[in-house]
């Protein structure tokens, strides 16, 4: 699918120059939000939306064709992969005899009374949400952009 008006689409030098800078920053910020969500406001949903905004900006300045190429994978594949991550993270609990989605923590280092680096399946769940949001919203966004 290619946009019929790809060639005639007005391009703005300011927008494309700014996008080059801003889109990268936004993507880094989205990952920051994703990881921050672990113990503070933030998380996969809002992080995903910020990442989508970066790609939306990129698609506006360079066209969806170029944005799709940059994304690498078809957005619907990203969405389903995210769903798989979230579901898998949720199932860790039941496998260990706890309720669905229960967090299982692995502490690397530390002395057992705090400290060390704690990681859990909740991160995987959050990454799953991030990917679902990125994939699902971009699927819709690209489709709308290409129909018009």
């Amino acid at each position: 699918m290619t946009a019929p008006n790809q060639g005639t689409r007005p391009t703005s030098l300011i927008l494309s120059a700014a996008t080059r800078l801003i889109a990268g920053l936004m993507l880094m910020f989205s990952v920051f939000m994703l990881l921050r969500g672990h113990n503070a406001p933030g998380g996969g949903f809002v992080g995903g939306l910020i990442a989508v905004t970066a790609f939306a900006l990129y698609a506006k300045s360079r066209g969806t064709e170029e944005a799709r190429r940059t994304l690498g994978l078809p957005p619907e594949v990203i969405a389903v992969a995210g769903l798989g991550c979230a579901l898998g993270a949720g199932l860790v609990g039941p496998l260990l005899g706890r309720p669905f989605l229960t967090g299982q923590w692995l502490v690397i280092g530390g002395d057992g009374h705090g400290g060390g680096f704690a990681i859990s399946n909740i991160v995987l769940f959050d990454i799953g949400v991030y990917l679902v949001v990125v994939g699902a919203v971009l699927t819709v966004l690209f489709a709308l952009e290409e129909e018009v």
Partner: protein
Amino acid sequence: MKPELLLVAPLVIAFATGIATFLARRRPRLAGALSVGGAALLLAAALALLAQVVAAGPIATQAANWPAPFGITFVADLLSAIMVATTGVMALVIAVYALAEIPRPLESAGFHTFYQILIGGVCGAFLTGDLFNLYVWFEVNLMASFALLVLGGSREQLDGGIKYVAINLVATAMFLVAVAVLYGLTGTLNMADLHQSVGRVGDVGLLTVVACLFLLGFGIKSAVFPLFFWLPASYHTPPVTVSALFAALLTKVGVYALIRVFTLIFTRDVAFTHTVLLVVAGLTMVTGVLGAVAQMQVRRLLAFHIISQIGYMIMGLALMTPLALAGAIYFMLHNILAKANLFLISGVMRRTAGSFDLGEIGGLWKANPALALLFAVAAFSLAGMPPLSGFWGKLLLIKAGLDAESYAIAAVALTVGLLTLYSMVKIWNEGFWKPHPAGDGGVVTLAAALPGGRVWLLMAPIVVLAGLTVAMGLFAGPVVRVMLTAADQLLNSDAYVAAVFGSGR
């Protein structure tokens, strides 16, 4: 398996099947088989859940092990369990029908994936014990159903789809505002916790306003008067499989949500809120059935009847007696089976007689007597002929209306029943009885319309649903007893609240 896991099993199965069908999307035959297999598994899990709840009362589980009311609770009382089991049945039979009806390009565009996600979303809405989480499931349903509605992308579909999504966004926005105000009033969104804390709210007036916001939001979702216009505008455009799935489940999620919040949370000013519900119920029944009288297109006609019958369910909720609520649940179950079946039959009618338009078809009785018989079962059940299921549903509701001395609503319910019969007889006369306008050659037999064994993929779901309709009528006694227990759990929420807070762990 622990009983608590049964609460999340339907969701996990549906979403895992969605992922599997996506991976297999380039091989439609495999994806279709996976979809049917997943639906069968979901039905098994749902029946196990129902058996558990019938045997031991409401059960709950706390997602991520956060204790209620801080985390998200999944909880099933008898109403939820019945609805999930019904969803399982519909998911399975409609998935089988889809194998023969959905064209290959739609299958590779992800039809089965959206189908499974919608099923998972519906189960989630029935099982959650948290208002905000309910909102999330509504959004999941909205996205998946919009995708199903416009898949294929004809102009007509997009037109209906935009109307559908626009008004449903208004509904979810209204719902979200109501959730926010309610949270401001009580400081909680756990439904069992709300049940206890609304009693402590000083400002009953504001609480009633919130109740009306919920009524608006869920009312749009369940297509009650005067918020139903999106439904007949969109339900006749997608493939028959999708129409049938929507007719079976989508509006019922709205009705379920209404029943849940107006029995568990908003019971402080029943004189006002439930009177509004009663008026809405009456007007919904009448406008729906009158809208149907004017239609000549089978699916549009059936779509108006969905609205009319939503009115009966709301009537049961508005009366708020054990008998009325049992009637509403029985009627909802009956309606899901009969209405979805009529949509499935309309698809076969078009395949054999060539059109959805009643003016252009006919002669189906002579060409396909078996189909005519199956149509008669579903249609006369819908119209309320004894001993089919619709009769018992209406009997319970009208009896409850008379007991509550609401004679007006009982009279409306009776009259609307007659008009329903008129519409069903119209389909019968036009589609089955009168000769086909193009002569005997206009109608082909089922076997000719669908060569190979595929005719059974279309007919088996119709036969199963018709069988269930008959069984619900013949075994009305035991079924109604279960419904009465469900109604009792709705009116005495102690067991529900105890399940949410007491499961401890």
